[in-house]
């Protein structure tokens, strides 16, 4: 089976600054991959290259075996319909209500009638644990946590096989963040999509990730399970994972006994 994401020899340069220097990465179906790295290490840049918002200076990105930046616009469109992206600040269309935001990608398919779209939208809202009465609100009237949930519902509206998350819990208080991580985990188990995410938050990483890719020195220095990454000897991994607090979090969340 072809990997969901295939990165081959990705090089990114901005002017003379080299951000990525030959990155290879495979994500298999059903995996939850977490990209970590110091600030400025190009995590978000890599994410933007994966979803085709940015063209790498060299190398190739393939999603579901197809090139993200294929010259054929129909291939490009079909690839884009198979993944959903959750932006850091939600990126909800501010002029549309919650309902219309989630219905937007479904309407763009020009396949379903309004009744079916309406049912699907309310189903997605229920999936992210929002009620039908939230549907009429405008994005400006939502709290931060609700914006994330609506954005997640919109990202899920086309039943994606891959969910791309940019800092899914940034700006949420710990309680909400835990809830949101739990929600993504539950949905992932039920719907079986793969996830790629960028996060700074150890709780998110430990709570969700089945694999961790560490970006440092312009390449991916290690890509393995969260438990194994602790044993890797590298200054960044030391400072990121091995503080007192980090060790406690990783132990608590990754040990099987914690899963009841």
């Amino acid at each position, binding site marked *: 089976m072809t990997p969901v994401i295939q990165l081959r020899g990705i090089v990114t340069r901005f002017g003379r600054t080299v951000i990525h220097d030959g990155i290879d990465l495979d994500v298999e179906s059903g995996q939850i991959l977490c990209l970590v790295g110091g600030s400025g290490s190009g995590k978000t840049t890599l994410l933007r290259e994966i979803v085709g918002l940015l063209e790498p200076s060299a190398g190739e990105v393939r999603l579901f075996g197809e090139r993200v930046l294929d010259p054929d616009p129909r291939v490009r469109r079909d690839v884009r319909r198979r993944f959903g992206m959750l932006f850091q600040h939600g990126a909800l269309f501010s002029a549309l209500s919650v309902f219309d935001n989630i219905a937007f990608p479904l309407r763009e398919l020009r396949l379903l009638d309004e*009744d079916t779209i309406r*049912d699907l939208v*309310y*189903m997605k809202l229920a*999936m992210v644990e929002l009620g039908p009465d939230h549907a009429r609100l405008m994005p*400006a009237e939502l709290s931060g946590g609700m914006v994330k949930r609506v954005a997640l519902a919109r990202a899920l509206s086309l*039943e994606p096989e891959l969910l791309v998350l940019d800092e899914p819990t940034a700006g949420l208080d710990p309680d909400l963040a835990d809830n949101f991580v739990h929600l993504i985990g539950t949905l992932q188990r039920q719907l079986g999509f793969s996830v790629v995410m960028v996060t700074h938050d150890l709780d998110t990483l430990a709570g969700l990730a089945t694999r961790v890719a560490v970006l440092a020195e312009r390449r991916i220095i290690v890509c393995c399970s969260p438990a194994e990454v602790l044993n890797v000897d590298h200054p960044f991994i030391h400072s990121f994972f091995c503080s007192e607090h980090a060790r406690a979090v990783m132990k608590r969340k990754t040990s099987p006994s914690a899963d009841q």
Partner: protein
Amino acid sequence: MARPALAIDERVGKDGQRELRLSGDWTLTALPAPVAALQATLREHAARRPVWDLTDVARLDSAGAVLLWQAWGRRWPEALTATAEQRAILERAAALPPSAEFSRGRGTRAQQRLDWLSWPLIVVGTLLFKAVRNLREVVTLIGQLVLDLGYLFAHPRDIPWREFSATLYKSGALALPVTALVGFLIGIVLSYLSSLQLKTFGADIYIVNLLGISIIRELGPVIVAVLVAGRSGSAMTAQIGVMRVTEEIDALATMGISRTLRLVLPKVLALAVTMPLLVVWCAAAGIIGGMVSANVEMGLAYGFFIDTLPRVVPVANVWIGIGKGFLFGFLIALIACHFGLKVRPNTESLSARTTSSVVTAITVVIIVDAIFAVLTRGVGMPV
């Protein structure tokens, strides 16, 4: 990539019991192009009350579940064979509130629209109320600006010089080329058209009176006002509007900085100072354009034109032009800032307010110009 198409297979058992076996991918991506046809087929099958067998379905997502649920008439079929996972997905569709609940409140709006007799009344009334509300808010804003001015007299150290000079530069200095060009071209056109008429009466030299009065007193201020409303007015509304959207205005407020004092007042004052200068500049360009055209068209000497101009155009006209410039500048900036502050945090509102800002500014300028014309009808006319 070829995906397994969804399929429906019907079998009739010995006892006459129909069995409906679904297979393939029942997902959004795999749905056949006219979904309505599939929906009709499903409903047809559902009417015969078969045993539904979903065990061969490879993948079922919420789109497939919704289609099935709709076909079943929004209730569980009498006989269903499905895996636990499929049931979980179908449970989601089952948890949807009945469709009647969504459409509450829609009927009343449709009724309103049907009532065509009261419709014009509603439109006019809404517009009137909107206009009155805007007027009241603008007056409030003027009052706030007066208070701010009073505060600045008492605390001259707080005068926002940087913002003032920035506006002066952006809406004044940077507007010089376009105002000169437009003024010059209008002068040429006006002079050319007038000279055609004047020549037939042999009244060539009156071109100086005509151009002088019309450009300095009327056209200069109005043209500059239209240009500035489109150029700087829209920019001010958009800038303040985006600051509302990104909560920058709230950030200012939390730092204890008055938004009117820091954002509105410098813009209003700077535009009130810039506009008269632009009017003079644009009128000069217009006169020069007219002069060139008169010279080409009728052979009127430049020296004669320049000599005659001050004699036939009383200087009061220049003051009227400058006064209009001041007033128009004040109004344009005030209206632009007013609509900027009214932007709600979404893109639609931003575009609507920017449009209102420019349209209102130009309309108000022309109304005020007409009032000005009536009030000053005895002033500055050659005897």
